[in-house]
């Protein structure tokens, strides 16, 4: 009797997972093995044709490479910004800290579409930034920021930094503040204390933060769709086009599955690597 209780209690969550997550995932996976032609539509056959198509076409390689580079750049920049900021948050006066956490979480309170359109206004050829630079005479021709990977990274970092800060902050809160004093008493300068003592102890947070940021960035849709458009395609916008423009659902499903599997593989490998390197911090 008692052994059934945990299952019973987690049943609502399990049902939601099964219906909302597992079912569409399995259906997408099944769909990716079907075939498609322009006159007959989707055929319930079974084969690896779609995967072979994707993996043999340099067009898709380019899109995958771009997607992962954008996700990687976003993760690195978010970590570079988020880690010091989390450290400052930790050392702030409690009043300012709660205020600053609100500021950090601010971007998450605004719809991603609205936020990205805001970036479009800023980054456009006749956008606020280019207009300002031109009117003070720094540039003559507008800097191209819309429809570039750089623009996408910029907007993604803005969305993702809060996740990084919260993850690192949680890790830093677990560290014993006396370790910093101990290092100082042993002769370490503030920069050394940060690099040798604080940073390694923040590693679990940086790891979990970068896992979140990387996977969200690699599968982000709204930001690359608005700021990249048709010219700078990433995997998720490609999947969208296959489903809704070409109507080749099986090919779209295959691309989606490849994205899922490769992101998973990258995350597991990264996790292993960091845990091995910083064995002492992970309990």
């Amino acid at each position, binding site marked *: 009797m008692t052994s059934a209780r945990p299952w019973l209690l987690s049943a609502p969550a399990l049902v939601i997972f099964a219906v909302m997550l597992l079912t569409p995932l399995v259906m997408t996976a099944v769909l990716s093995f079907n075939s498609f032609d322009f006159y007959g539509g989707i055929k319930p056959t079974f084969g690896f044709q779609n995967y072979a198509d994707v993996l043999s076409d340099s067009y898709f390689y380019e899109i995958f490479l771009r997607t992962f580079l954008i996700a990687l750049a976003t993760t690195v920049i978010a970590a570079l910004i988020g880690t010091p900021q989390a450290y400052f948050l930790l050392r702030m006066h409690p009043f300012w800290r709660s205020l600053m956490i609100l500021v950090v979480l601010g971007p998450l309170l605004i719809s991603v579409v609205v936020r990205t359109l805001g970036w479009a206004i800023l980054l456009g050829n006749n956008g606020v930034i280019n207009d300002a630079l031109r009117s003070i005479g720094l540039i003559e021709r507008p800097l191209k920021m819309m429809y570039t990977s750089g623009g996408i990274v910029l907007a993604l970092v803005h969305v993702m930094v809060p996740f990084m800060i919260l993850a690192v902050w949680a890790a830093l809160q677990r560290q014993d503040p006396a370790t910093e*004093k101990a290092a100082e*008493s*042993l002769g370490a300068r503030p920069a050394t204390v940060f690099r040798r003592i604080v940073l390694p102890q923040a590693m679990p947070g940086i790891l979990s933060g970068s896992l979140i940021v990387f996977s969200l960035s690699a599968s982000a849709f709204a930001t690359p769709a608005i700021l990249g458009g048709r010219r700078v395609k990433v995997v998720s916008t490609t999947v969208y086009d296959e489903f809704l423009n070409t109507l080749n659902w099986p090919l779209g499903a295959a691309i989606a599955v490849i994205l899922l599997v490769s992101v998973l593989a990258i995350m597991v490998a990264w996790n292993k690597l960091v845990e091995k390197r910083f064995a002492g911090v992970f309990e």
Partner: protein
Amino acid sequence: MAILELRDLTKRFGETVAVDRFTLSVEKGEFVSLLGPSGCGKTTTLQMIAGFETPSGGAIHLNGRDLAKIPARSRGLGIVFQTYALFPHMTVEENVGFGLEMRKVPAAERKKRIAATLDLVHLSHLSGRYPRQMSGGQRQRVALARALVIEPELLLLDEPLSNLDAKLREEMQLELRRIQQEAGVTTLLVTHDQSEAMALSDRIAVMQGGRLVQEATPFDAYDRPTNGFVSSFLGKSNAIDAHVESVGADGTVLRCGDLRLNGPAHGEAAGPVLISLRPERIEFCGEGDGVVAGRVTERIFLGDQWLFKVDTSLGEILVMRRNSGRREPDVGETVHLAWQAEHLRILAVETAA
């Protein structure tokens, strides 16, 4: 020669005075304890010596140098923190070597000194472990080794044993004393545990409300407390309110209710005083020889000792008897208490602080 000198050291946090004109000097090689209840300013004092807090007034001199302008990292002190504060991502060897690395000691010498210090704390066999793989007592030793390896002029211990269980704490006390003497390092211990302070130190500085109330050897502080606070904080004590009735050449006569007590010679000529009497100096005796009679209200067996609470006309009196295997009075029995006049301590009544 005094190696550490604190002169009128003061620390204010806003309106509150945490440390109030604290003066103390520590000789080379000496083991001194700052003892007091929590909030007495002992930890703040240590933080100021370490350089983590800036004094509001007074001076700290270490080996003749004024520490005021010297940052914590350049003071060269060895500090053992209450939480040990080991670096969790470094092995024992890396933890101990960190201070040497900061001092740019060449690798070969570093290795030698790490090995020697780990040997001193009996941890050579665990040098490759991470802190989380070790017990509390072992972590404590690592923390000690890390502080000692830099050969500090002064070792600061911040409640180093408070996170250990009772049995281990006793073992570590002996161990700490051995290591301190072997290393010959001048040591300042901060603790609220009176038995720890008495067991370890050459000298105890008792603090109360940010002030130094007594500075003495453990024996003197216990045996000749300067006020009621010290006598009740160091060990168990019976505090009895009394009046000085007359002072003679060979003693003082005290009046306590309708009882007359004889005490040792004392400066106060008259007025209210506080008598302190240690429970282990009181004996049970026959009816005629007793100073005061009472009824046993409680009897607690402590293994090597018996602790009695006796209800007398002087109030509740604690009596401590060594367990010598004899039959001891039961609860409810009437007993007669006696003590030698010289064991009474006559203290000034503390004015309300």
